[in-house]
């Protein structure tokens, strides 16, 4: 290589390294800001008043690959979609505790639940939920089935469920479970039965 090429190479390398460092810095800043926004969002969530109401959760267990019905008391908001969100956050809470029967990524949360018509729920999770979810056919199926079955158990009109990640459609949860489709509570009912 001639001296000129070496100099050009060195200059370009320095520029590239500089830009790469800046990109990493910006990426980390974006992540920090998103976390902050998520925390603010949690803080802005409407506070529920009133006595705790018993809800039904379908809790997954990795050790014996089961999905079992469980009761818990949760303070529920009045609005239907907010109630669905509160129930799912109670479900996530049981997975986020330590020790967990079915660990999901620390920081996983339900951003919103949107109801389309009477029978369809669109669950918008945060990116941590999918990014840090343990990968595996059974692990992912347990999560999906517990979400759908729990929603249906507490609001029997919800017959179809779609799961979004950070407002976007994803191909799979963590490499296996299909997130492009609407799940039918009737179909998941068969899975729940098999996993009892």
């Amino acid at each position, binding site marked *: 290589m001639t001296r000129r090429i070496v100099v050009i190479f060195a200059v*370009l390398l320095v520029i590239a390294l500089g830009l790469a460092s800046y990109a990493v810095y*910006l990426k980390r800043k974006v992540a920090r*800001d998103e976390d902050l926004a998520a925390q603010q969002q949690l803080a802005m969530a409407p506070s529920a008043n009133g006595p705790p109401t018993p809800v039904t959760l379908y809790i997954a267990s990795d050790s014996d690959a089961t999905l079992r019905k469980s009761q818990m008391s949760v303070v529920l908001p009045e609005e239907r979609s907010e109630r669905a969100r509160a129930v799912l956050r109670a479900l996530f809470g049981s997975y986020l505790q330590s020790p967990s029967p079915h660990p999901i990524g620390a920081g996983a949360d339900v951003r*919103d639940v949107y109801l389309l018509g009477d029978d369809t729920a669109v669950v918008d999770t945060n990116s941590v939920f999918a990014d840090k979810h343990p*990968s595996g056919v059974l692990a992912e199926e347990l999560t999906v089935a517990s979400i759908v079955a729990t929603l249906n158990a507490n609001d029997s009109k919800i017959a179809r469920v779609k799961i979004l990640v950070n407002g976007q459609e994803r191909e799979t949860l963590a*490499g296996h*479970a299909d997130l492009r489709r609407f799940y*039918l509570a009737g179909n998941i009912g068969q899975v729940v039965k098999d996993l009892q």
Partner: protein
Amino acid sequence: MSPDSARSPYSASFPLAASAAVIILLAVLGLHRSNLDAQTPAPNQLTVYSPQTTYSVPLLDIKGQTYVGLVELLEPLGAVDARPDGKKYKLHFTAAGGRPEEAQFTDGKDKAKVRGDNYKLPANFVLQNGRGYVPLAAATNLLAKLLSTQAEFHAAGRRLFVGAGVERFTLELRTGNPSRLLIGFPSAVNPTIATEPGRVRFTFRREPVAAAGPDNVTYTDPLITGASFSEHDGIAELDITGNAPLMANFADNGKTIIVTAAPAPPPPVAEQPPPAAATQSAPNAPASAQQPRQPPTPRFFVLIDPAHGGSDIGAAVSPSLPEKDVVLALARRVQRELASRGIAAALLRTNDAAISLDQRAASANAARPALYVALHAANTGRGVHVFTALLPAANLSPKSFLPWDTAQAAFLDLSGTVAGSVAAELDARKLPNTTLLAPLRPLNNIAAPAIAVEIAPPSDKVDDIASASYQDQVAQSIAAGIAAVRAKLPEVRP
């Protein structure tokens, strides 16, 4: 709160900066690469020929030396159980029909032990991400020692011959009008043939062929002027040159190829006299010229899909045990077990290639297998989980036009039959198992009977998921389960 409201103002500038960095990096790497390419060709793959199989293994350039992965090199030839232990790498290998052998290597050292003997590698052993790599120059000796057989390496062509060895072809020119060049092989061959004016080229990708005489031969013949044999990147090529257009014919059940002058092109149709009786065929015309093409024979083969690959490692069964490696090893065992039961099987992925879910489904549907088996591994639960697609029942005929997202719905009954049979075989071997419906991609998109099998560790010791004995039992169960219901699965016309 809308999904967009949490987006940071930095989101817009980040892609711009990242794109600029990537472009400059690529330019820098491209400049550097172009200089490197001018000096040394990048190594890519080694082709291994053995009596049982022919396969290709990717090669890596590590510190200027060409290396090959030990597991990738040995797995197609037998059962491999390899695991790192600190800086050491212990390998147990049992060739098909052979006895167990052991070898031990140390990261950064050129001293190894193979079958209890000290063995010096031509360069240091490399342990990267739990995978062991040996210098390519050591591959021949290692295979010969572990297989207790002869091995021959053609370095220039990156072709390694194990066991039965090289099949050498002979050339015999028979002069005449026209002259004929007879190329004789010890066994039938099936090369790719390409022709151009004055040249015909045979490319051998799977046959262990090499020249019996010199690689380049010149003839003083008015038609055929020369033959040239070469090997490169794991393939062999034979070029025959001539002074006129050449053609090739097979004889002796594919053991002989005859190269001779191509017939002159027929005169233009307009110059031909009109047929005397255009509507009647000649009663004594050769039957083969008038017979319609026979429909292809139905076949039965299983397509095995080892999930994930490349940067998609799947589940981290343990920090040193990615799902993609566990399932590739299992897939090869299942293929062997099926072959031992007389069932042909192909692997959708034979190396560490990244294939998207849609590509997997498209490839599987194009191959038209009698059965599709996806293999997964995870550390959730214990034992084996057998899945069929979670789809609403649909009244679809397998012969009708099938929607992509629910193509599997037409085959659910047969898929369930196979899953039940595999579960029964797992029970028979006392392996804990569960049969479930699963919302698994690309199972939904497969237009054939299809199951997925996910293995979990058999005990609390997670690394046992990769043990030869456990994987063999699972592979035997899957193969026996498929063999038991083979008669119920339709053979498919290719």
